[in-house]
């Protein structure tokens, strides 16, 4: 299955998925297209449809070739899945794009919660407050989730606080840690090893497997704003959560 359209291509990746690619660079416009098509497709599941996964530039539709072949006889399952994805894209793009959510994330910066804030400030010859101000100023866009459950790949950070990863990665980073790696910023939803510069921590759970309809704080397409809270507020917010 391979198809070239004006502004996207569709191709099989293995016998159980088709991928639509909307561009070759990271851009908010491409993200919005992916998010819109994904929302549209997920509401129109066909027999054998398993799930869709968005990335920076594409949307993958996973399907069960056996069920698709049984349900749409006389045609290769790959062609059926590719045709359906193609239809979703054309129909979704005729409809209005899905609105983005605005998510405000409290962060306790520095101290025990952000052990690398001092280093990041020193690296840029600025004060810790400068780093916090620059980090809380922009609106960030979640391009996709990956790496681990609920981990956001976000864009929008001010390059003035871009900082290389730590020379030696930590063996365990606490869940909720907010960090910087190169020109990226993001948060660790679960405790994992990692080399990011940790500037703060959020008391809000970023991964909550008990909520099956919304298991992650962030979703692709979200607009994110960080705001600084004190240690007392951090503890208070944490106690409110289930």
């Amino acid at each position: 299955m391979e198809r070239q359209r004006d502004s996207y291509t569709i191709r099989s990746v293995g016998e159980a998925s088709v991928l639509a690619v909307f561009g070759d660079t990271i851009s908010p416009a491409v993200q919005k297209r992916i998010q819109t098509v994904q929302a549209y497709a997920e509401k129109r599941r066909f027999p054998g449809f398993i799930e869709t996964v968005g990335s920076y530039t594409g949307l993958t539709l996973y399907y069960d070739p056996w069920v698709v072949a049984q349900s749409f006889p006389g045609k290769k399952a790959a062609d059926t899945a590719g045709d359906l994805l193609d239809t979703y894209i054309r129909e979704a793009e005729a409809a209005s794009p899905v609105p983005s959510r605005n998510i405000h994330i409290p962060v306790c910066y520095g101290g025990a919660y952000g052990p690398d804030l001092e280093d990041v400030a020193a690296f840029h010859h600025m004060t810790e407050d400068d780093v916090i101000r620059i980090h809380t100023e922009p609106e960030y866009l979640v391009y996709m989730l990956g790496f681990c459950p609920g981990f956001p790949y976000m864009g929008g950070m001010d390059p003035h606080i871009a900082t290389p990863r730590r020379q030696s990665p930590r063996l365990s980073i606490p869940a909720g840690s907010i960090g910087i790696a190169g020109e990226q910023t993001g948060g660790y939803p679960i405790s994992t090893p990692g080399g990011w510069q940790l500037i703060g921590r959020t008391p809000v759970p970023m991964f909550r497997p008990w909520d099956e309809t919304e298991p992650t704080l962030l979703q692709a397409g979200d607009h994110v704003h960080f705001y600084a809270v004190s240690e007392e507020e951090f503890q208070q917010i944490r106690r409110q959560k289930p």
Partner: protein
Amino acid sequence: MNMHILGNSLMTTVQDLGRTGYQKYGVNVSGAMDPYSLRTANRLTGNPENAAALEMTLMAPSVVFDGPSVIALAGADMNPSAGGIPVPMNRPVYLPEGTVLSFGRPRRGCRCYMAVSGGLDVPSVMGSRSTYARASLGGFQGRTLIKGDSLPVGKMPEKGKKLQNILEKQKRKTAWTPWSAGIYPICESFLFRPFRYTEGLQYSDFSEESRTALERNRYRVTVHADRMGYRLEGEKLHLAVQKEMISEMASLGTIQIPSEGYPIVLMAEHQTCAGYPEIGQIILPDTARAAQLKPGDTMTFEKISLEEAENIYIQTEKQMRAMTAGIDAHIEQGGL
């Protein structure tokens, strides 16, 4: 009824057919590495195919049930015995209460699946009982099983009771049916056949020599082989021209090539996206076969067309369904 884990092992987890629908949240599918063997074991005990069972890797723990049970083992043959008597693979086996089931070294394969009639009744998390240990998610407390763990067993389904009634009458402590299920895909000849793949996302970006090298050479599974993926050793592979990658989709069976050139095959607990160029996509029936490889085993690769890949998938599913229908028919006809 409970299943008690009596010993330690390398990597024993609770798995079903996986957690689908959550990859967009960064949660991988997980589930049995060799789903065909899991499905076989489940059907042999009268369970639905997706029931939770044990996946035991290279070295299995001894276990005991505190009630009479019907179990089945499929996948790697780890020389199972019950109360000291060798028991067969791929058959329903009746164990009287308190019979200790133990295992030896694997005779072939790497992962053995043990289903118990009624299934392992651990909580379902995000629609699945599969363990995703790196995220401490699902299974039994989100982790690998250790000595002293006790896992609840669900209510025995009608087919399981039927098997129990028949096997109990055999006047032997431990009893099994005279018939067995087919053993796709784990027999020796299958394990060393080439692993078939279709072109990966960046296939055409690899140098001519690298594309040929993947088909011509043997690759060895290193010790860095787990539920997340297998690192391989062998001829290095490279892009024709180095280029910056944007993280793209990654799936079960993706063969990715990091810059040092050694292939990584992504398995059940792979990350949902990846930043390395992808040369190939191993077909799904062959990823199940790869689940039975141990560190030190070799892999060879054979490129096939997408059309062939789809046909093989559908043929495999047909064989699987014929086999499970046969199991059901045996149980219906009185199990013997």
